[in-house]
C-alpha cells in the first residue's frame, strides 16, 4: 500500500467524521495560533522598545541629578535635586579633561504655553545648546537649528517639534513665524523631523531653544543655572565605558565628592537600559510561549483521545481490512497518517489564524506594539503540530495494528 493510498484513506475517514475531526483540529489550531501570536507579541514589543531606546540617540550616556533631601528630612527620588549646572556641562565638553566625550547637550525643561496669534498650545520647552541635534540624533524637517552664537547671545529663537508646529500654525509654514512664550516673542527658525514617541513623552511635541534664552527669559531666579539632564555622546560604542569613567570622575571632582557612593548624580547608558528591557521582554516571551505550548500539549492529548475513540469505534473496519489482507504495518500507517493529518491541519490553520491575528491584534487592543510573525516561528509551529500528531498517534495506531482480526470482526 503506497503513501498516496494511505493519505487518501486517511483523508476519507477524517472527512467521514467531520465534526469530530474539526473539533480535534480546533485544539491544535488554538495552541499553534497562541504560540505564533505570543512569540510575535514578544518579538514585537522587544523590537519596539529597542527602537524607542535607540531613538534617544546612539552611544549616549545620560546624566541625571541625584536625590534631594528637604529640611523636613523627606527624601526625593533621583532627579529631584538640581545638582547639575550649566558649568558641569561646559566642563564635560572640555576635550582635554574628557577626551572620549564627543559631544555634550545639557537640557533644561520647562512646561510653557506657546501662543501664535489666537492659537495657544502648552508643551515642554527644552533649553539646550547647538550640539543637541547631533547628540539626540534628531534631524530637521524645515529651516535651521540655532547656532553657538545664538546660545552665547541668548537669542530669542526656537525650533519646534513637528506636532507642536502643526498645533500652532496648521498647514502654514512655521519657519519665520513668531511665537510668544512667557510674554516674550521668539522667532521660529526650524521644525524638527518626526521621531515618534517614547514611553514617557511625545518627541514631536516640544519647543527647543538656546539654554541661555530659557534661563534669562523664562526660568530666571535661583534655578537659572541648573539643568535637568546632561546628554553625553561617546565617540563610538567602544569608547562608551571610557566616556562613562571620565564623566564620573570629572563630576565627582567638580562637586567635591569623595566617591561614587556619595554621588549626587546618576549616569545611565542606553546599552544597560536596552539589555534590561530586552531580557525582561525575553522572559515574558518565554513565559507566554510556555503557556501556549501547554495548550498545544492539551491539543495533542485531544488528538490521542480522539484516535483511541476512533480505533475502538472502528474495530470492525480494522478487522475487515485485516481479513482482506491489510498487514499490521498498513493499519498502523493509516492511523498514524490520520493523526498526523489532524495535527498538520490544525497547525496550518493555526498558523493562518496567527498571521491574521497578528494583523488584527494591534488594532483590537489599540496598541502600537506590532505583532511580528517570523517565518521560522510559523514553520517551526507547523512542524511541531505534525510531530504532535505523530507522537500522540503512535499509541492508538499501534493498538489498531495489534488487534487480532477475529476479535475485531466479532465486535458488534
Amino acid at each position, binding site marked *: *500500500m*503506497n503513501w498516496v*493510498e494511505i493519505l487518501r484513506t486517511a483523508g*476519507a*475517514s477524517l*472527512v*467521514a467524521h467531520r465534526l469530530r475531526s474539526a473539533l480535534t483540529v480546533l485544539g491544535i489550531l488554538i495552541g499553534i495560533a497562541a504560540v505564533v501570536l505570543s512569540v510575535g507579541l514578544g518579538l514585537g514589543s522587544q523590537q519596539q522598545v529597542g527602537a524607542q531606546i535607540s531613538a534617544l540617540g546612539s552611544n549616549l550616556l545620560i546624566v541625571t541629578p541625584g536625590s534631594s533631601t528637604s529640611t523636613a528630612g523627606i527624601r526625593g527620588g533621583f532627579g529631584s535635586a538640581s545638582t547639575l549646572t550649566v558649568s558641569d556641562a561646559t566642563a564635560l565638553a572640555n576635550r582635554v579633561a574628557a577626551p572620549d566625550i564627543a559631544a555634550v547637550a545639557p537640557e533644561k525643561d520647562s512646561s510653557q504655553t506657546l501662543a501664535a496669534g489666537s492659537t495657544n498650545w502648552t508643551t515642554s520647552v527644552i533649553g539646550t545648546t547647538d550640539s543637541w541635534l547631533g547628540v539626540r540624533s534628531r534631524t530637521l524637517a524645515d529651516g535651521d537649528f540655532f547656532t553657538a552664537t545664538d546660545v552665547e547671545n541668548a537669542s530669542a529663537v526656537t525650533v519646534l517639534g513637528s506636532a507642536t508646529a502643526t498645533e500652532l500654525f496648521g498647514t502654514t509654514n512655521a519657519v519665520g513665524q513668531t511665537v510668544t512664550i512667557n510674554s516674550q516673542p521668539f522667532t521660529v527658525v526650524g521644525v524638527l523631523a518626526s521621531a515618534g514617541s517614547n514611553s514617557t513623552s511625545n518627541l514631536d511635541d516640544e519647543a527647543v531653544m538656546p539654554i541661555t534664552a530659557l534661563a534669562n527669559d523664562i526660568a530666571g531666579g535661583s534655578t537659572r543655572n541648573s539643568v535637568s539632564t546632561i546628554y553625553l555622546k561617546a565617540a563610538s560604542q567602544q569608547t562608551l565605558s571610557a566616556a562613562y569613567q571620565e564623566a564620573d570622575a570629572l563630576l565627582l571632582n567638580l562637586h567635591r565628592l569623595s566617591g561614587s557612593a556619595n554621588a549626587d548624580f546618576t549616569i545611565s547608558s542606553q546599552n544597560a537600559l536596552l539589555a534590561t528591557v530586552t531580557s525582561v521582554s525575553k522572559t515574558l516571551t518565554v513565559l507566554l510561549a510556555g503557556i501556549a505550548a501547554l495548550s498545544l500539549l492539551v491539543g495533542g492529548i485531544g488528538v490521542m483521545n480522539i484516535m483511541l475513540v476512533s480505533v475502538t469505534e472502528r474495530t*470492525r*473496519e480494522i*478487522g*475487515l*481490512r*485485516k*481479513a*482482506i*489482507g*491489510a*498487514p*499490521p*504495518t*498498513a493499519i498502523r500507517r493509516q492511523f498514524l497518517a490520520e493523526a498526523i493529518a489532524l495535527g498538520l491541519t490544525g497547525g496550518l490553520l493555526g498558523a493562518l489564524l496567527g498571521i491574521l491575528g497578528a494583523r488584527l491584534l494591534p488594532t483590537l487592543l489599540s496598541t502600537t506594539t506590532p505583532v511580528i510573525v517570523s517565518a521560522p516561528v510559523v514553520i517551526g509551529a507547523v512542524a511541531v503540530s505534525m510531530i504532535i500528531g505523530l507522537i500522540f498517534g503512535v499509541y492508538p495506531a499501534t493498538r489498531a495494528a495489534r488487534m*487480532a*482480526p*477475529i476479535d475485531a*470482526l466479532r465486535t458488534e
Partner: protein
Amino acid sequence: MTAPSTTAGLPRTATPATRPVIELRDVTKTYSSGSAAEVQALKGLSLSVGTGEYVAVVGASGSGKSTLMHIIGCLDTATSGTYLLAGENVGSLDEADLAEIRNERIGFVFQQFFLLASLTAWRNVELPLIYAGVPRRERQARTLAALERVGLADRVNHKPAQLSGGQQQRAAIARALVTEPDLILADEPTGNLDSSATEDILTLFDELIGQGSTVVVITHEAEVAARAHRTVRIKDGLIVPRHGDGGVTHMVGLTR
C-alpha cells in the same frame, strides 16, 4: 497476486480434485480464557477440499464451526496439526505473512457484508487490490470486471447505504472475487437476506462454481447447504461421519 490457471481449465461439474485447496490434518484448537478451564473447540479434525469444489460446513452453534472457519480463513492459527492452503503450510506464519495469504488466496464473504460505509461500492471492491499493491490501471480493470461478474456494474458509485441487502452482499462477493483467490470462504452469507436475495446469492455461487471457483460456505440453513455439492457436519469439534466413511469424504454428490 495469484491467478491460478489450474482452476480455469477445470470441467464445469465438480469432480474429486487432484490438488486440494484445503488440507487439514488432525487440527486442534484450544482456547484458554483466563481463569476458566481450557476449551477445546476442535479436537483433531481432518478435512480436504479440492479445487472447484462447493462445500457446505454445517453444525449447531458451539460445534466448532466458527473456529474451523477462522482457521481455514487464516484469521486464526491451529493449536496443533497441519493446515496446507493451496499446498502451503500456513501453521507457522506470522501476522504479516498471514495477511498476505488472506489477501492473495482467500476471498471472504460475511453475514454482515462488512462493507465500509464511507466508501463507494467501487472503493470497497478495490480495497484488497490496494493492499496487494496492484497498479492503478490494472486495479481499475479488475475492479470493474469483478463488479460486472456480480451484476453491479451500474451501481459502482453507490455507497453501501444506497444499496439493498442483496446488492451489498453482491458487492462483498465482488470484493472476495477481485483478487482471484484460491478459495471463497462464506460465513452465513445469506443470514441477513430475504428469500429472493438469498436465491440471487446462491445462484451467483452456482455461477462461480461453474467458472471454476472453489467455495466453502458455513451455514445453518438447510436450503443453503443443499446447494453445495458436499456437506460437512461439525459436532463437538469433529466432523460427523457419513455413510460410515470416517468423516472425510470426497464423494461429491452423494451427500446431498
